[in-house]
């Protein structure tokens, strides 16, 4: 009888369990980790966990929750038991994501360019033009090297019924979270060194170098001496830690809007030695706040005149302006169409069937089945503007009914995907229980190939029975290990 220690009495429940194929039966790619963890003395795991938390705290790795009135920075809860994927499974995901990123980029080139997809009647123009994040201001703008989707975070979930991965949503505006992938890995290797060494885990630490390489390649004045900056909304932004982390990792300047100035269509940073020209901006400021002359006049986060410089090709922005039309949750249901239309390929990854409330037929179905569905506002991200029907009370459902009726185009609905689970440690009980997870890999596109650091951010819903994994909604994270080989 194998000693199962920490996993004694662990219940896989009625969900797909990433670690166990049956109670007490670890999957082959989890076998080594299982041995290491099960062999730990009681209390040892808890001690390691505290060390890991302390390490995050000391490094100041935090995020901010907006909807919570306290508005404080918090530690992003980290769970020590990693999510492991065998190489063969990862390779399929990698291919599927690459295909998707290239198709999304072609879609953006097309809707802001020739618009052949409308002429060929693959998607109705009204659906695209009515996206809250469709930006008419960039129609006809030629972006550097034709790249819109430099950095994408694409959320995947494993469906417990089929065991298959589905794309849940695309994030092609300013996806965040990669800093946690890098930091989680660092903390993991320090906290559980023997377990990490026992498994052959593919590295992730080349991400900043790869991103810096792509940013440099966008420079309108050539790569040599290209001046690259990271534009942050500032210290109050939920992802400010990540902005400063990435800037430091890439060795580029971290700036706020007030540090930049545009003169005659050229962007400069203000330095103590005078103005210095800027070639590439990795911007983590949303479109509508980027330039008060073009977008919201009340934005003080942006740089007046920036869009003029961008349009003239004097500065490159990553990601491009207007990408929100591609990760609109109503457009999501057309991504398989984009893959077939632009690439002539069949989609490798599945997408969740989606009801568009803008279609009258779908709308009446959604309104009748709100208690069974997940409803999402099309332009939101981070779990904001969302209804989890099965978990919601009557008042919340009625509130959404009114919101959907008032603006059907703004909502889509899907059936709940029962997410897979990974054993996770519950400090309040000192035991391990199954918790639902998703996976957000980070894809970098240089115009020719898509580079994805193996794995990505595994987000975990730490509350029992919850399927909402967003950090802003009380989720945590795990390190994600992609093994060399099958374990």
């Amino acid at each position: 009888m194998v000693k199962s220690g920490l996993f004694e009495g662990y219940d896989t429940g009625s969900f797909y369990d990433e670690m166990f194929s049956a109670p007490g039966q670890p999957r082959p790619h989890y076998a080594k980790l299982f041995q290491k963890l099960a062999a730990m003395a009681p209390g040892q795991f808890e001690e390691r966990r505290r060390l890991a938390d302390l390490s995050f705290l000391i490094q100041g790795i935090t995020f901010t929750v907006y909807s919570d009135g306290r508005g404080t920075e918090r530690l992003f809860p980290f769970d020590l038991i990693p999510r492991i994927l065998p190489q063969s499974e990862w390779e399929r995901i990698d291919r599927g994501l690459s295909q998707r990123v290239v198709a999304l980029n072609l879609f953006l080139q097309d809707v802001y360019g020739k618009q052949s997809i409308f002429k060929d009647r693959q998607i109705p123009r009204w659906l695209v033009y009515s996206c809250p994040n469709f930006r008419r201001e960039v129609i006809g703008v030629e972006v550097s090297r034709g790249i819109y989707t430099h950095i994408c975070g694409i959320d995947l979930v494993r469906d417990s019924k089929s065991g298959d991965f589905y794309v849940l949503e695309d994030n092609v505006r300013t996806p965040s979270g990669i800093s946690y992938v890098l930091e989680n890995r660092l903390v993991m290797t320090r906290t559980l060194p023997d377990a990490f060494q026992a498994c052959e885990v593919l590295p992730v630490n080349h991400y900043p170098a790869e991103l810096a390489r792509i940013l440099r390649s966008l420079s309108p004045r050539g790569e040599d001496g290209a001046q690259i900056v990271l534009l942050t909304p500032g210290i109050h932004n939920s992802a400010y830690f990540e902005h400063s982390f990435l800037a430091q990792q890439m060795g580029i300047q971290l700036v706020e809007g007030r540090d930049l100035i545009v003169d005659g269509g050229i962007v400069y940073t203000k330095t103590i030695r005078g103005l210095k020209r800027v070639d590439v901006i990795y911007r983590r400021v949303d479109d509508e706040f980027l330039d008060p002359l073009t977008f919201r006049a009340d934005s003080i986060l942006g740089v007046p005149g920036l869009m003029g410089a961008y349009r003239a090709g004097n500065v490159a922005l990553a990601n491009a302006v207007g990408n929100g039309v591609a990760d609109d949750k109503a457009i999501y249901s057309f991504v398989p169409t984009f893959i077939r239309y632009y690439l002539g390929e069949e989609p490798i990854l599945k997408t969740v069937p989606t009801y568009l409330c803008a279609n009258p037929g779908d709308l009446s179905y959604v309104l009748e089945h709100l208690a069974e569905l997940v409803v999402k506002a099309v332009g939101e991200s981070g779990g904001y503007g969302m209804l989890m029907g099965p978990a919601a009370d009557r008042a919340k459902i009625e509130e959404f009914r009114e919101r959907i009726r008032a603006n059907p185009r703004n909502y889509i609905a899907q059936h709940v995907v029962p997410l897979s689970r990974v054993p996770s440690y519950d400090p309040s009980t000192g035991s391990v229980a199954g918790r639902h997870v998703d996976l957000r890999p980070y894809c970098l596109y240089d115009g020719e190939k898509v580079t994805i650091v193996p794995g990505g951010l595994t987000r975990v819903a730490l509350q029992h029975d919850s399927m909402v994994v967003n950090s802003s909604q009380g989720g945590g994270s795990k390190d994600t290990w992609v093994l060399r080989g099958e374990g």
Partner: protein
Amino acid sequence: MNRYRLVHTTEFVYDGPVSESYNEVRLRPLHDERQSCLSFRLTTNPGSRGTAYRDAHGNWVHQFNVLPEHQRLKVEAESVVLAHEASDAPADPTTLAEFDSRSHQLDEEYFDFMAPTGYVPHLACIKEIVEVAERASGGTVAGFAQAAADLIHQRFRYVKGATHVHSSIEDSLSIGAGVCQDFAHLLLGVVRMRGIPGRYVSGYLVPGSTAAPDAKQEDVIGGQASHAWAEVLMPNTGWMGFDPTLGKPVGLRHVRIAYGRDYGDVAPVRGVYKGHAGQSLSVDVRVRPAIDDAGCEQLNKITVGNVPPPSVLERPQQPAQQQQQQ
């Protein structure tokens, strides 16, 4: 006389010093089969640096910035325009019934000119105007647009100051009055509610006395030549102008500058600057017959000497006032 020289001057005067002024102007008249823009010149005082581009609707946009401290900013656009004689083609005979049978196709192509906007929201109370216009339309699309323009001209009073540059049609509907910007938006509201594409036109109305020196002096509505009206899509012959403010056909005296979904797409001058100071805006448009046919477009060759660095004083960023199209 259908060749005009237009000088459009916009001047901002601030109560105190301001800096880092960024502006975007749509002042260059269109150049197409209906009018030729023979020359265009944009100057600013203080001098500025800028870029130009064409927006999604095909309008010319000039952006420029003035970084050093200043207390007034003058923007002068001078253009020479030749208005072409209209063809004698008969009005588009398409009936509303024929139009309705094809409308799904137009919905797709002209989404932007059919969907509600901030200035032209979808309001149930317009339905009554739609119904009256339909009864007076003679059954055609052109007749409908004309009847709608006439109804607005008759029912709404032209009152300067009744509304402001950011007013939506809700304001003019509630007070029964407005200026040409509101009237153009109202007409768009009516035709769009009927399912017919309509677009906002920013431009100039050349005073009658200038257009025909021998003709009898005619009041320019609003007292100046800056003007706005709307164009409605005729399914067979294309866009056709209707002027609900003037109550007369759109013709040689209408000079077009820019198209859009509403005023927000075509504001002649918009900007932001830094400073605590209050601002006042004055606009003057002068039109006279162009005698010489001065050559091609000449954009202001902007010459800026040594630009002093922007003041280190932190100043709040403010939006510049915008001119209402009256």
